[in-house]
């Protein structure tokens, strides 16, 4: 037991001396959190809009103003040349164009339902769809006001069925509430795995692993001594990142933090085990980096972190069950957002535990066998 303690101290000293590694563990994740929290937004703002006003009437100008008054659109120019729009889009100067046809005002007044064309750059399909949705919203508001103010006699279309929506678990529809817990999971996967993998391959590359073997240390002591520091560090990281998410980024936690801490510890067996596994199949730190990176990309992709699993083709959907991160991702999000308790999380906790045990014991066996 004392031997393990010495090894742990040696590992910590090595980590403390290696400034970049400490930065990678604590500073980089916080920076990522800061950027993620600001980048992630489902709102589309400032879509570059060109107004092609071929009517030049009071109402057409009022319509253009209705668009420029929102922060959804930024009116970048007025023109009368529809043919120039695609070329402007090719140069990325315009994303959408509103074409108000000649006779717009007179037709509207006569109730002849004038055609209003809206050209949208479809390359970014998501933005295009959202922008069209906004445009429809602005138009319907414009028409309501028009009907109320100018055509008091014209009757508004009645709405016999009303939909009352309740957005559960995330009433503000905040992307942060969804993505930041996911980011915590991503960080708790990437960093423990990389650190463990690299620390073992480094010892092997430098030949110091063999030196450790000729000491009176037993194999399991060696393993424990090398893994415990990373377990402690990763756990500290979980604490730091979660605290930052709650205190700095005001992420609301509906469920129990104790539950989260317990399941986090369970998950670390998976990631540390994967790190150990990577180190057993690679010869150099460089190879370990590549293999770990590949695993991480695969796990991130299949975890539902940023691509919702229900959207995937069937084959990929089945593949996601092989991704241990998938389970922890669902658990963390449910604890944060829905306040789920252990019983309703069991369908995810059980496979996660099974994966963790399997991966950890397999890599330990493989490692021991390699040491001979």
């Amino acid at each position, binding site marked *: 037991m004392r031997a393990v303690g010495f090894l742990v101290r040696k590992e910590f000293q090595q980590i403390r001396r290696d400034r*970049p590694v400490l930065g990678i563990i604590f500073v980089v994740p916080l920076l*990522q959190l800061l*950027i993620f929290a600001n*980048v*992630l937004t*489902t*709102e589309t*703002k400032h*879509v570059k809009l060109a107004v092609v006003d071929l009517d030049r009437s009071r109402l057409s100008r009022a319509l253009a103003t209705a668009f420029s008054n929102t922060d959804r659109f*930024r009116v970048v120019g007025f023109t009368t040349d529809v043919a120039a729009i*695609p070329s402007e*889009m*090719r*140069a*990325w100067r315009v994303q959408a164009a509103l074409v108000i046809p000649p006779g717009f005002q007179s037709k509207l007044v006569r109730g002849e*339902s*004038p055609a209003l064309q*809206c050209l949208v*750059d*479809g*390359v*970014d*399909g998501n*933005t295009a769809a959202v922008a*069209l*949705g906004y*445009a*429809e919203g602005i*138009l319907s508001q414009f028409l309501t006001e028009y*009907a109320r103010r100018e055509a008091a006699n014209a009757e508004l279309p*009645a*709405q*016999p*069925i*009303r*939909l009352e*929506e*309740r*957005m*559960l*678990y*995330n009433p503000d*529809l905040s992307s942060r509430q*969804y993505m930041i817990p996911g980011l915590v999971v991503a960080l708790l996967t990437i960093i423990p795995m990389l650190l463990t993998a690299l620390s073992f391959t480094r010892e092997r590359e430098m030949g110091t692993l063999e030196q450790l073997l000729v000491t009176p240390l037993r194999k399991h002591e060696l393993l424990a001594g090398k893994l415990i520091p990373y377990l402690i560090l990763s756990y500290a990281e979980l604490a730091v990142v979660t605290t930052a998410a709650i205190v700095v980024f005001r992420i609301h936690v509906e469920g129990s933090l104790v539950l989260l801490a317990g399941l986090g510890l369970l998950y670390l067996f998976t990631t540390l085990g994967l790190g150990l596994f990577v180190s057993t199949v690679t010869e150099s730190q*460089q*190879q370990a*980096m*590549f293999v770990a990176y590949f695993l991480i*990309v695969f796990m991130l*992709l299949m975890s539902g972190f*940023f*691509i*919702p699993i*229900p*959207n*995937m*083709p069937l084959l*990929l959907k089945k593949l996601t069950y092989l991704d241990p991160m998938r389970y922890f991702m669902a658990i963390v*999000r449910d604890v944060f957002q*829905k306040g789920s308790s252990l019983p309703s999380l069991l369908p995810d906790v059980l496979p996660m535990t099974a994966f963790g045990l399997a991966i950890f014991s397999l890599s330990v066996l493989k490692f021991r066998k390699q040491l001979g």
Partner: protein
Amino acid sequence: MSPRALNSLFLHRPGTLQASLRRIRALAQKELYHILRDFRTLAIVILMPIVQLVMFGYALNLEIQRVDLGVLDYARTPLSRQLISCFEGSRLFRVFSMDGSAEEADRLFRLRRLQAVLVIPPRFGEEVERRGFSTVQLLVDASDPNAGTLIRDYSRRVVAGLASEKTGSQPLLDFRPTILFNPDLKSAYFFVPGIIALVLVMISALLTSITVAREREMGTLEALLATPVRPHEIVVGKVLPYAALALVDAVFVLAVGVLLYRVPLRGDPLLLLLLTAIYLATGLNLGLILSTVARTQQVAMIMAMVTTLLPTLLLSGLIFPIASMPGWLQALSYLVPARYYLLIVRGILLKGSAWAHLVQPSLVLLGMSLLLLAVSARRFRTTLEV
């Protein structure tokens, strides 16, 4: 004699251009042997970008396909059945009828069996005559806000469709959206060029970042130092082989994008290749700078990942539109090379943009690349002299 004096003795020896070119060629050849001899790494370098593109392109689908909708119909009137069949008829929803209470909905949300529940109150439809409208309730699992918004908007459209069918009113306006360049709003058209931008900058920065750090780790940097090779010659000699390798990668990746994902190539392929080469140069030069900072290969690689992967993923417009970000992040995004390359690659592939449309981003990219080259050559001199 101090190392510095030794250096100046060798490095400032006058030489002809021809001699310089010969030294560069020798260095490039040496580096090429390094690449070819390390078969495993070479395989990773060639395969990794392609595998990534295939994986991402296949999986990156942000269009929501199916939403499982539970229906609690307390009314059981002709109107309620009509409303349900409107939901059943829409492409998005798969409708399950439920019985029980709204608490059941919460349980099913937690088990992720349902994403939305439509609650039709008793006496639904009867109030239409009395009050002029009747209300139905929609419960949405909005923990994923994107999906939540989509479900809400779609349901509104379904309900409005039924409502206008009932009243038979004519719209005041005839709104005609026309979507250009990607009328089906395919995610792949948007993301495949984005992934290309990502893997190219990552692989090129990774490649060069390791080279100098490896020489330093192995002690061969000092051996290089003792030769008459000059710093800028080392820079060029080291970058050239990796530039060739990265360009091969780029062609592969672009081919996969066009052939496998059927992303159209509407512009000039030569222009695309030329501008891609400039983009690769920024990545290669960036990696070179990092390698002069980092003492070990490990640190060099991690730095290469951190400086390319995340900024490109988050700040270039690859996924999240730049215009929607707060001002300080928008300002940061000007520093990310992929921001400019994305305009180029998406423009040429999807819109058929020509040189005249892309002058500005191309020049910025070229300027960045030259600046990074100058910095790396300079840093190289100082690292060699220390």
